[in-house]
C-alpha cells in the first residue's frame, strides 16, 4: 500500500470529474433537489423536525454517494480503462483507497452545500453548530468505505444499477440512524449524545475501511 499511489488514483478521479466540472455542481444540485422534493412530499411541517430533516439529508447523501461511485466505476469499464490500472504494479491495492478518498472529498463538499441548504430551507435552529460539523464529518467519512466496497462487488454484474443500493442501503442503516441521531442531538443541544454518535460513526468508518482494504483487491477484475 503506497500513499503516493492512492493519492494518484484520487487525483485522477478528481481530474476526470473536473474535466467535467458539472460533476460536482450536479451532485450538489441533486442533493438540493432531493431534499426539496422529499420535504415537499413529506410535508414541510414534518420535514422541519430535526430528526426527520436529518434523516432526509443523510438518505440523500447516501444516494448521491452511491450514484457518484457507480458512475465513476462505469466510466472505468468503458474501453477497459480499469484494466490499465489493475495491470499496473500495485494498482489493484491503490484503487479502493484512491476511489474512497476522492469520493470522500466529493461528498464532503456536497454535505457542506446540501447541509447549509437544508438549514436554510427548513429554517432549523442548531444549538451546537460545532458538534453538528463534527457529526457531519464523521457521517461523511462513514459512507465511502462501504459504498466503494459494494460497487466493486457488483462490478460488471448484470442489474448492478439496482444491486448496489440493495446491498449498500441495509448495511448503511446503522450508520444512517447514527448520523440522524447525531444530527438531532447536535441540533437539540445534547453535546454528549452528539459526540457519542460521531464516535460510533468513526468506528464504523474504520471497520469498513480495514475490511475494504483487506478484501477488495481480491474482488477486482
Amino acid at each position, binding site marked *: 500500500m503506497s500513499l503516493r499511489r492512492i493519492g494518484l488514483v484520487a487525483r485522477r478521479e478528481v481530474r476526470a470529474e473536473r474535466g467535467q466540472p458539472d460533476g460536482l455542481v450536479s451532485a450538489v444540485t441533486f442533493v438540493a433537489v432531493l431534499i426539496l422534493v422529499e420535504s415537499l412530499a413529506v410535508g414541510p411541517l414534518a420535514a422541519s423536525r430535526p430528526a426527520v430533516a436529518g434523516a432526509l439529508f443523510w438518505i440523500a447523501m447516501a444516494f448521491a454517494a452511491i450514484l457518484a461511485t457507480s458512475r465513476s466505476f462505469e466510466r472505468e469499464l468503458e474501453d477497459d480503462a480499469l484494466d490499465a490500472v489493475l495491470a499496473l504494479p500495485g494498482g489493484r491495492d491503490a484503487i479502493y483507497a484512491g476511489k474512497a478518498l476522492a469520493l470522500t472529498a466529493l461528498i464532503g463538499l456536497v454535505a457542506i452545500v446540501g447541509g447549509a441548504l437544508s438549514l436554510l430551507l427548513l429554517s432549523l435552529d442548531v444549538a451546537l453548530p460545532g458538534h453538528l460539523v463534527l457529526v457531519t464529518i464523521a457521517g461523511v467519512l462513514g459512507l465511502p468505505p462501504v459504498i466503494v466496497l459494494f460497487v466493486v462487488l457488483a462490478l460488471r454484474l448484470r442489474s448492478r444499477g439496482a444491486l448496489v443500493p*440493495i446491498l449498500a442501503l441495509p448495511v448503511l442503516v446503522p450508520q444512517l440512524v447514527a448520523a440522524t441521531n447525531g444530527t438531532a442531538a447536535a441540533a437539540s443541544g445534547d453535546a454528549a449524545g452528539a459526540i457519542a454518535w460521531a464516535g460510533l460513526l468513526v468506528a464504523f468508518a474504520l471497520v469498513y475501511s480495514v475490511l475494504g482494504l483487506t478484501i477488495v483487491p481480491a474482488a477486482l477484475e
Partner: protein
Amino acid sequence: MISTTAKTTSALRARPFLGAASIVALFVALWMALVWSPPDAAMGNVVRILYVHVANAWLAYLAFVIVFLASVAYLWTKRPVFDAVAVASAEIGVLFTGLTLVLGSIWARPTWGVWWSWEPRVVTTAVMFAMYVGYLLLRNLSDDLERRATRAAILGIVLVVDVPIVHLSVTWMNALHQLPSVLRPDLQPTLDPSMLASLIAMTIAFTFLYAYLMTARVDIERRRQARVIEARA
C-alpha cells in the same frame, strides 16, 4: 486442487442419521413445548409460540455466522467446498429469517395487537433479511464459479456485522420486544426452568434440522459444481 469426493461422501453417510435425529428431537421438543411446559401467567398458551420463535431466530444467527466462517475459509483456501457451505447456509438462513419474520408477525398480533411494529429487533431482523436476500441476488447475477465465490465470500464477511446488531438492538433502545432472557450478557437466564428446558430442547432440535438441511443442500451444490467443472474439462 478441486477434490469433490472425500468430504461429500462422509457427509452423505451422516445424512440419514441427522435426518432421524432431527425428527426424534423435534418430536421430543414439540411434546415438551406443547404438553409438558406450563402456560404462561400473562400470555397463556400463546407463549408456546415462543419455543419455535426463539429456535427460529437462533438458526438465523447460526446460519449467518456459518456463512461468515465459510466465507473466510473460502478466501483463505479457495476450495469450492466452502463456497457450497456458504450458499447452503445462506439459503437456510434466509428461510429461517423469513420464518422468524412471519411467525413473529403472527405472534405479534395477539401479544402486541399489531402485525408489524417498528421495534428495533423486528426492524433489524427485517434489515438482516434484506441483506441476505441481496447476498443471494449477487450470487444469482454472476454465473462464473470462481468469481461468484470470491464476491459472495467478501459479502458474507461484510454482512455478518449485522448479526450482533440484531441481537443487541433490544438493549440499546428499550422497546416492546423482550430483553434477552436467555442469551443475556451476564449469562443468567431469567426464565421458568421447565420453559427454559423446552426452549433448549427446541433449539437443539432445530440445530439438528439445520445440520440435516445443510448436508442435503451442500450435496446439491457440490454436484452442481462438479457438473460445471466437468463441463469445462
